[in-house]
């Protein structure tokens, strides 16, 4: 029986036994995990069916057609999107069995403790220290930009265990119990007033060595596993034509009494570029399915970030007088898991400034495209071979 048939059979069985309309989402997710339909590319027993990851999109699509709640994919995105793959590659069986199912069912939320105030684009520069003490590690430092930290049970944590090594070496990776003593999560408000992100202060936090992923000193490569999984997690989702930021622009245009061809042409230019980006995502998805991925798969984040800023800025101009306002004002709030916030065009406009910073700045992404895709040479690296502690910062 081929993968596709096995998967379709499993989906049929799942939907028959747990009709989405009448099954509480958490129960459904548990059943979905047990049926191997959480991550079909995981082994059987680990939420998967040992199939190819390119079938992930098919599962989502079929469950979507059946109106199954798939909000866990988004709400626990760090765990389901990135943590699961990392655990699969680097955790032992016991850890996988303990962590994967409650991750998928949203019983336990996950966050990612990578970035630090001094380690943004230069992630490998991180300074949070972990010092071995018996079979425990004592962790001290500060993490930042931690989505979901305020509701998380587990954190994917990278620490520096040997500052005498060059920066990419001497890092070690842990799963941190966010309920541990010494973990202090503080909301980090952004320019919209909201606090999507947090700062996480770690003061003499104890972690069992059993919670380590990968070897001591191999934290960089484990972290790379996590970041690589990000693509898989969001891959395959191609928005429909005219959705997203351009939809707000079109709606604003249609609501306005603008008859100015100059602005109409700007709108059309942005519409065309949004469509080009969408078709590129579609092409990347087709290429992944066909097993012939090319450069089209590497350009979307950069393109999207820059385009999203342009579109949301344009929308403010179309809004005219409403573009002078921030409806509801600036409230310093933190989002909860349940709430689906209503996002105004003004919030989208402000929020978009972060698009070219988060998940790799546009500058870093251009470096990556230039070096890894085009094969252009790197810059002279002044810090690469120096012991981390000797690099000026």
């Amino acid at each position, binding site marked *: 029986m081929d993968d596709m048939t096995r998967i379709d059979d499993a989906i049929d069985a799942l939907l028959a036994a747990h009709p989405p309309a009448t099954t509480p989402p958490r129960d459904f997710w548990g059943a979905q995990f047990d049926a191997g339909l959480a991550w079909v590319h995981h082994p059987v027993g680990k939420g998967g069916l040992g199939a190819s990851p390119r079938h992930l999109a098919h599962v989502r699509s079929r469950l979507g057609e059946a109106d199954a709640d798939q909000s866990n994919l988004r709400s626990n995105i760090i765990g389901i999107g990135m943590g699961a793959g990392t655990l699969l590659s680097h955790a032992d069986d016991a850890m996988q069995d303990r962590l994967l199912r409650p991750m998928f069912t949203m019983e336990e939320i996950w966050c990612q403790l990578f970035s630090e105030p001094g380690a943004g684009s230069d992630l490998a520069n991180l300074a949070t220290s972990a010092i071995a003490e018996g079979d425990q590690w004592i962790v001290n430092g500060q993490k930042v930009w931690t989505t979901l930290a305020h509701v998380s049970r587990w954190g994917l944590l990278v620490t520096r265990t040997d500052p005498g090594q060059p920066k990419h070496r001497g890092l070690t990776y842990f799963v941190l119990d966010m309920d541990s003593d010494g973990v202090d999560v503080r909301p*980090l408000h952004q*320019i919209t007033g909201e606090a999507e992100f947090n700062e996480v202060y770690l003061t003499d936090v104890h972690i069992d060595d059993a919670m380590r992923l990968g070897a001591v000193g191999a934290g960089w490569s484990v972290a790379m596993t996590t970041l690589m999984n990000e693509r898989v997690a969001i891959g395959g989702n191609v928005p429909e034509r005219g959705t997203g930021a351009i939809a707000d622009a079109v709606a604003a245009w249609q609501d306005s009494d603008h008859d100015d061809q100059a602005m109409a042409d700007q709108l059309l230019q942005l519409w065309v570029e949004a469509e080009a980006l969408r078709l590129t995502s579609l092409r990347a998805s087709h290429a992944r399915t066909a097993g012939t991925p090319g450069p089209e798969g590497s350009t979307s984040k950069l393109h999207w970030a820059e385009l999203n800023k342009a579109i949301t800025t344009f929308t403010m101009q179309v809004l*005219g*007088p409403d*573009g002078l*306002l*921030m409806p509801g004002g600036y409230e310093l709030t933190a989002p909860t898991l349940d709430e689906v916030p209503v996002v105004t065009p003004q919030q989208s406009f402000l929020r978009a400034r972060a698009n070219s*910073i988060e998940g790799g700045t546009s500058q870093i992404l*251009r470096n990556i495209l230039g070096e890894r895709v085009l094969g252009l040479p790197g810059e002279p690296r002044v810090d690469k071979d120096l012991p981390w502690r000797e690099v*000026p910062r």
Partner: protein
Amino acid sequence: MTDTATETSPTRTGAATIQDLVLTDEQATLRDVARDFLGARVPMKRVRELMATPSAFDEGLWQEVAAMGWQAMAIPEDLGGAGYGMVEVAVVFEEIGRAVAPLPMLSTIMATAVLRDHGTDDQRATMLPSIAAGALRMVVAVPVAGADDGVEITDTEAGARLDGHASHVIEAVGAEAVVVATGRGAFVVPTDRAGMTVVPMDALDPTRPLARVEFANVAVDDDDALVGDAGDVIDTARTVGAVMLANEMVGVAAGAHAMAVEYAKVRRQFGRAIGSFQAVKHLLADDLVQLEAARSTAWWAARALAVHDVEEVAVAVPVAASLCPATAAAITGHSIQVHGGIGFTWEHDAHLYYKRASAATLLLGSGRAWRRRLGATLALT
């Protein structure tokens, strides 16, 4: 390769000489004093305190400013003013922008210009000295394109009455008087008159409050009426306001740019100051080009206004008004980018510049609207 036409005189026969595009020693001193004052009295901490209030207004600060003569700058000396020119006012606005200061100077200079050009002798004699002294805060309800506004005037047995509303009125919260246009001339109406309500709006830029001014059967009489066509009154306010806003935007852009440059010198990633990377360096260099270009237009517009060169104003003002806010919005956005994540946080000051600049792109007319105006002047439509 550059064009080598011979040096041409910037001024035109028949108009007063337009000042050179440099600051005189007195203007440079004025700039330094303004910068020092704002740095000391309206540091970012104070900006944040003020912007958390509906009016963003500090009466004590306003009186200090009055003592320095800022409200009086564009008022003739015989009416309690300092009798400075528009160039000096522009110098102060650039500094206000650099400080992102929540000072209602924009509305004040607009109201001052309206009274100067359209006030009755009596209005000028009573109101301008009060404005100069910081005792009267007057704003102008400049209609915003696309807003569903309008104030109607009707005659009743008891006299004329105003009904309707004006929205997005700049710095109106806490003002004592508002200039409003109707189908039958413009009026200065005290905000405490019966039937008047000033409702704060949630402004994108919290350092510059906006309000909806509502008129419900508000009595006005001839003493309230300004001289001339309502359209001309609004045009005066919009023109002077746009020039000062352009100069303010130069300051906003300069402040945000300087902050980014300094950060790029000290922030290290990959073992190097980030400003040593061309990605950052060239962004900041390009922004310098745009900033200096914008400054030239803002300065020129103020100088054209200063000598009442009508022909030059018709070109210089839309040039500056269309360019400077957009340039400031771009540069302040880039400043956030250079700062990276920290620049996106509420606690960092980068967003104050960005919001001030972004709102300015719409405040007194969009760039597109100003270019339409320019196109009409140049017969390029």
